[in-house]
């Protein structure tokens, strides 16, 4: 857990209050016995069992001792015992928890089984059992509460250790010859620290309560020593005479217990996923950036998709906004296949999601103009947009396993599309689903329609995904890395399928991929994205004449089956800029061999050849040898 996270945990009002309370309690625990220790022991025969008086605000006990002072002084003992029990619990739990990782397989299983058995045993019963074994008294109670909590803590450690053990870096350390104990100390424990800290904090709170309970029952602290639980027990006998005597220690227990638990919870909240509140960026921010943004080319006539100055922003963790998509212009004509190429973080997928109105809730999507299949989604209620676009835009995702509902038959899921959007009857919809599965060449479609998604192979699932898009007649198919998770032979089949579907239905296809060779196979036009913007767009046939240095570098850096093995591959120095920290001007300039002072101003997309536009102050005009060789040496 980093310093920032601690700070965030304390900044949260609940966390701050809890931490403040704990500091107060700690101070009390240190100073109260020093200041009032003796006074709290002082018996006053003149004031036995008094109610509230000016001298004793909370009254006195049977021996005439001041209850308020006793409650304050008992802080040290109560907290100390609770923390001691927690420490025992954590140490025993961690030891038991990492034991399976250190021992061999068989001994490890034995430990795991024993721990599981102990977890199943009720905690309080375990504590009472230990209390009997260790004898009645503070020592027995500490051991009892500590050991009673150990099994569940051990289980937590085991689960987390098992999760981390499966990670590659642990395997790598093992291969490097790191011993078992060092492995636990250096690699396993530090990486599971967060849940352990949270749980230990919460556990301290419950240990405090358990202790008060045991003392109250007379199984904990024995006289003359006293803690809150004991004071509560004594006070309760006379609750009708002097309610404050019982209430004060009770309140102390509750407040201290709450402080621990709340602190634990607020740490957990910071460590875990925080709910992000939806925010809107300031308007001025957008207007300033819009001035320099790229726009869609003027296209007379028909379009199935027009995006002009599309921007997708997210609230930055440190305040402000970042724009992973920062002024994209994109036009797709009916029946056209357009490929969007870019590396991870270039904003290509987010562009597609924003166009399909599927951007995450926290995102802020703006555009000077956005029209999808003749619909302008902006300014309309979400349900209406879904209704309008539901049948006109089909999405194919990278991992179809996550885009299908695993508990529904594939046929039923396909049928649902037309049942919802077109109000078709169940039987007719199912028949159409089978027909569409046949269209995408799923063998034995009747049988397959009754299967669940997990019974499909990756390639078949991707076909089914395409079939789902074809349940109505889409005007636009957006395929986001549809073949990245597939083997090459299956990739080829899916790409061919997309091509056939496109030819048969006349739908436009937008293919998003990191692999420029894949895009070149399927598409007519390529749009290259870098750092949230379009840097070049050109017809596939002109790839050999790519003008932007980034496009050229991408083309040259990928080996294919004709690459000269004796020459080093072309590389691009540096790394893409972080969206929060993009350089002024051309984002590629820091990695570009041709960059000069002119590149400090952001270049807009400008025509460099017919149908080819590049956002570069120094577009290259020399044909790209490598690609030309490959293009002319190919089979077609």
């Amino acid at each position, binding site marked *: 857990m980093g310093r920032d996270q601690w700070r965030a945990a304390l900044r949260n009002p609940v966390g701050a209050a809890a931490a403040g309370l704990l500091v107060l309690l700690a101070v009390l625990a240190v100073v109260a016995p020093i200041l009032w220790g003796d006074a709290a022991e002082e018996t006053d025969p003149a004031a036995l069992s008094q109610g509230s008086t000016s001298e004793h605000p909370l009254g006195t006990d049977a021996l005439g001792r001041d209850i308020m002072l006793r409650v304050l002084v008992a802080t040290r003992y109560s907290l100390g015992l609770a923390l001691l029990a927690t420490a025992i619990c954590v140490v025993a739990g961690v030891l038991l928890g990492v034991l399976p990782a250190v021992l061999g397989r068989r001994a490890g299983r034995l430990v795991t089984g024993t721990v599981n058995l102990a977890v199943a045993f009720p905690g309080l019963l375990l504590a009472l059992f230990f209390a009997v074994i260790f004898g009645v008294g503070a020592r027995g109670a500490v051991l009892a509460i500590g050991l009673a909590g150990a099994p569940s803590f051990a289980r937590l450690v085991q689960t987390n250790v098992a999760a981390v053990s499966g990670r590659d*870096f642990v395997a790598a350390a093992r291969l490097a010859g790191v011993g078992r104990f060092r492995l636990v100390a250096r690699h396993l424990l530090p990486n599971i620290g967060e849940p352990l800290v949270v749980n230990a904090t919460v556990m301290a709170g419950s240990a405090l309560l358990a202790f008060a309970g045991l003392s109250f029952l007379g199984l904990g602290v024995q006289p003359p020593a006293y803690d809150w639980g004991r004071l509560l027990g004594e006070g309760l006998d006379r609750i009708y005479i002097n309610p404050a005597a019982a209430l004060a220690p009770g309140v102390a227990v509750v407040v201290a217990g709450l402080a621990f638990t709340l602190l634990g919870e607020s740490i957990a909240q910071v460590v875990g996923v925080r709910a992000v509140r939806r925010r809107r960026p300031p308007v001025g921010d957008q207007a300033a950036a819009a001035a320099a943004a790229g726009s869609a080319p003027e296209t007379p006539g028909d379009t199935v998709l027009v995006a002009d100055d599309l921007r997708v922003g997210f609230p930055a963790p440190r305040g402000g906004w970042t724009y992973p998509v920062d002024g994209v212009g994109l036009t797709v004509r009916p029946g056209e296949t357009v490929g969007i190429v870019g*590396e991870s973080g270039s904003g290509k997928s987010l562009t597609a999601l924003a166009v399909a109105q599927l951007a995450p809730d926290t995102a802020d999507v703006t555009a000077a103009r956005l029209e999808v299949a003749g619909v302008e989604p902006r300014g309309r209620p979400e349900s209406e947009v879904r209704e309008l676009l539901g049948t006109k835009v089909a999405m194919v995702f990278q991992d179809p396993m996550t885009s299908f509902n695993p508990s529904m038959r594939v046929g039923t899921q396909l049928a649902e599309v037309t049942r919802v959007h077109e109000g078709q009857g169940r039987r007719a919809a199912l028949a159409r689903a089978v027909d569409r599965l046949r269209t995408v060449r799923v063998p034995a479609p009747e049988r397959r329609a009754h299967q669940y998604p997990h019974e499909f192979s990756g390639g078949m699932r991707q076909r089914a995904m395409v079939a789902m898009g074809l349940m109505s007649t889409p005007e636009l198919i957006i395929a986001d890395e549809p073949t990245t998770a597939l083997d090459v032979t299956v990739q080829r089949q899916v790409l061919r399928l997309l091509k056939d579907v496109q030819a048969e239905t006349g739908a436009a296809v937008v293919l998003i991929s990191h692999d420029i060779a894949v895009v070149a196979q399927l598409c007519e036009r390529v749009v290259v994205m870098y750092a949230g913007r379009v840097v070049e767009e050109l017809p596939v046939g002109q790839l050999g004449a790519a003008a932007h240095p980034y496009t050229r*570098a991408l083309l040259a850096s*990928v080996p294919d*089956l004709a*690459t000269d*093995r004796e020459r080093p*591959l072309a590389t691009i120095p540096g790394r893409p800029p972080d969206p929060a920290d993009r350089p002024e001007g051309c984002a590629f300039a820091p990695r570009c061999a041709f960059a000069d002072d002119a590149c400090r101003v952001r270049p807009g997309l400008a025509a460099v050849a017919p149908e080819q536009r590049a956002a570069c102050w120094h577009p290259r005009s020399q044909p790209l040898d490598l690609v030309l060789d490959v*293009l002319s040496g190919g*089979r077609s």
Partner: protein
Amino acid sequence: MRELSFEGTTVRFGSGRSALTAVDGVDLTVPAGSVVGLVGESGSGKSTLAKAAVGLVPTTSGEIRLDGAPLRTRRDRRRLQLVFQDPHASLDPRMTVGESIAEALRGRRRSARAAEVARLLELVDLDPARARSLPSGLSGGQRQRVALARALAAEPEVVLADEITSALDVSVQGSVLNLVRDLQRRLGLTILFISHNLSVVRYVSDVIAVMYLGRIVEAGPADAVLSSPRHPYTRTLLDAAPAFGVALDDPVPADDPRLDTEAPSPHDPPTGCRFHRRCPIGPLTRPERTICAETDPQPGAPDRPHRSACHFASETLTLEVPAR
């Protein structure tokens, strides 16, 4: 550097109906000082083979030898080092780069260690000052370099690289491939280079072995395997590799609609030749070839060209090879 050899290596997971033979009697030799590229699709068992070599999964039968001596103890296996696919997962996020690398250095003094870490970082083209950074401050390509440096720190006899460029962006992939090739030439490393990408394997390898459903179906010098494959599966892989100027519409033999489009389940591999249901020159297109569905071609493989596991290995030649 030594020679790594697998002899009849078999890895089986589970038992009963859920049993799965991930690696099935693999014979493969990685000669000293050379790079053997192992290609195959997901589920072919190529990663499992590498994990078996370093002892991350137990072998069911067969022997893995280093210069003829079987690897048995953890100490033996440390002479092999594995570089993992995902550099985001293979470095401990809590340890600095220097600490991660130093862990693999043994029996040295603290000062000597720091110097060695710096030398290794320089070897993989990273600034030695990077030793103090955490992995989160590095890009994917830089992390993969650190992972390589850590593997080299253990002074391995053989390096096994398991899909080391698959998780990287294409612009970074090139520099890592250049580094692998450069290191191999400078240090004379023995490398088993595993990838699903034929073009990548071709770029770094001297020998290419093709794996299908747990078995090596073809192995031979890289140029020979790629220019005149002797197993129809290799042919299919070559045809499917996306390349510029290769149109999707160009029919290839594997597009024959009579063939299965799906890979068979490894839980229940087909009888005879494991590839026969997807084979463009097999029984589904040539019904007279019943031998493919009945007789396992694997036993005769050592006598065929490229040790091909195909009854018609010589005939594969007649398939036209595109001029490249």
